[in-house]
């Protein structure tokens, strides 16, 4: 098993790209990652995507993106793991390179969400849940998270407003990220009075969906080179699954798969939660942030919300999170999100995070969650020069 690095990164701004198609956006991200890595031609391409079959009537994305990126002939795969599709693509690129099966792999995540009617998007997102026993009951994906949040509030005695810290922090950080969808701060008052979309979840608990694409080039450490290239080492790559349906979980308020995958990642990297300088967590909903923090060992059960309330997740506090805006404010193109997290962590480790730079950041963790906790991917990344 070889040491593996991220040798190049690429992303496009998250937003409403009505002038760029699904394939155009993916090509933009792939080409900019290859340029950044100064590599001409990878051997393998892993495309993370969740919705293109349903919303754009386009499958076969592996071959399509490879061809349009000028890479006709290489091996290519489309990987789907709901909102964790992009991190799943990275995990497989990592496997291929770490196992010595190829020397240059690209992982790309892409999603086109803004050109479909909102009810179609709502239906398509619900395919992350159990179609027969959840979606068929009229439960949207937002509603599943609302069920978690309501129970969490009841069980641990929180109010809606207590979750505001996650959203306020994300928006504050997005203001410094030129690739973010919502580059403006919000106030706790705005959070408290935001319109409910599935009570107790409001618009400001929820990540904004958008179009986007992000990509990384994965290479063995000995080929990834040195500065001016700035390779970022993948210290750990891990994943784990849980039941898809909330009602099938051991305990809906415990993200077993997140705990398992984080635990595997810590073991592989030989570090603990306190060693991480920044954490790009899956803040698709504020409740997911709380549960992810608890599963990763950064707070005891029922105390995940506390970290945000106390300001401990701010850029220069003890546990910086969502440092470039997170899913909440950078925007959440679902099948691409996991690689936005990784690209952002790389920017921090490379010292290229601009006004959001965390001084001396050397170890970053990213966690990408598919469904309401069904398939979870954790990566630990390290500055290595």
């Amino acid at each position, binding site marked *: 098993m070889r040491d593996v690095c991220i040798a190049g990164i690429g992303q496009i701004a998250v937003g409403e790209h009505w002038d760029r198609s699904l394939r155009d956006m993916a090509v933009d991200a792939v080409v900019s990652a290859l340029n950044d890595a100064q590599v001409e031609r990878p051997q393998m391409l892993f495309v993370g995507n969740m919705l293109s079959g349903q919303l754009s009537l386009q499958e076969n994305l592996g071959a399509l993106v490879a061809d349009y990126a000028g890479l006709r002939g290489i091996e290519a795969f489309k990987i789907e793991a709901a909102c964790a599709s992009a991190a799943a693509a990275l995990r497989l690129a990592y496997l291929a390179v770490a196992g010595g099966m190829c020397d240059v792999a690209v992982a790309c995540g892409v999603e086109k969400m803004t050109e479909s009617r909102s009810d179609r998007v709502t239906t398509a997102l619900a395919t992350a849940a159990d179609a027969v026993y959840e979606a068929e009951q*009229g439960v*949207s994906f937002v509603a599943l998270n609302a069920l978690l949040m309501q129970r969490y509030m009841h069980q641990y005695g929180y109010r809606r407003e207590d979750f505001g810290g996650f959203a306020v922090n994300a928006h504050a950080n997005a203001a410094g990220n030129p690739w973010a969808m919502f580059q403006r701060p919000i106030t706790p008052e705005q959070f408290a009075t935001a319109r409910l979309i599935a009570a107790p979840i409001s618009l400001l608990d929820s990540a904004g969906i958008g179009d986007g694409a992000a990509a990384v080039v994965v290479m063995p450490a000995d080929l990834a080179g040195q500065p001016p290239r700035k390779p970022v080492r993948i210290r750990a790559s891990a994943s784990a699954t849980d039941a898809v349906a909330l009602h099938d979980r051991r305990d809906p308020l415990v993200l077993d798969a997140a705990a398992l995958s984080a635990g595997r990642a810590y073991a592989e990297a030989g570090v603990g939660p306190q060693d991480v300088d920044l954490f790009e967590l899956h803040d698709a909903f504020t409740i997911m942030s709380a549960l992810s923090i608890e599963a990763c060992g950064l707070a005891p059960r029922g105390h995940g919300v506390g970290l945000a309330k106390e300001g401990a997740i701010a850029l220069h506090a003890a546990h910086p999170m969502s440092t470039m805006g997170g899913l909440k404010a950078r925007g959440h193109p679902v099948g691409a999100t996991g690689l936005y997290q990784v690209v952002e962590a790389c920017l921090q480790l490379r010292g290229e995070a601009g006004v959001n730079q965390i001084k001396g950041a050397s170890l970053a963790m990213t966690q990408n969650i598919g469904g309401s906790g069904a398939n979870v991917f954790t990566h630990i990344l390290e500055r290595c020069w």
Partner: protein
Amino acid sequence: MSSSSHWRTRRQRLALVGEQCPHCQAMLFPPRDICPSCHGPAKEPYHYGGVGSVYSFSEVYTAPDAYEHYAPYVVALVQLEEGPLLTAQLTDVEPEDVYVGMPVEMVTRRLRAEGPEGLISYGYKFRPVPERVAAH
């Protein structure tokens, strides 16, 4: 949902038939072939009583295709008195009256009318247990 999927799930949707694992006695709903607790084959039907309580709930304002007509509506995780959680809509209740722990019972209702196939989907919903409602 296709007509064969309706047919396949008719017992669980209309009569709340799940399973009790013959090996480890785990109570299972929805039914499945393999027990998630002991990994043994779990094919012993168990007819749930249909009484339980609200474990969590949400009022949905933005609904998926084919449910928009019904929005807003209340969805819930219901804990059956035999143990399992399930996901269902609440009915015959005002959203503001729902609370965690509220006793509920299963009723059969229309879930939605499917557009193109004209197939109407029936299944379980839950309503407040009448005695409690009367005493409220």
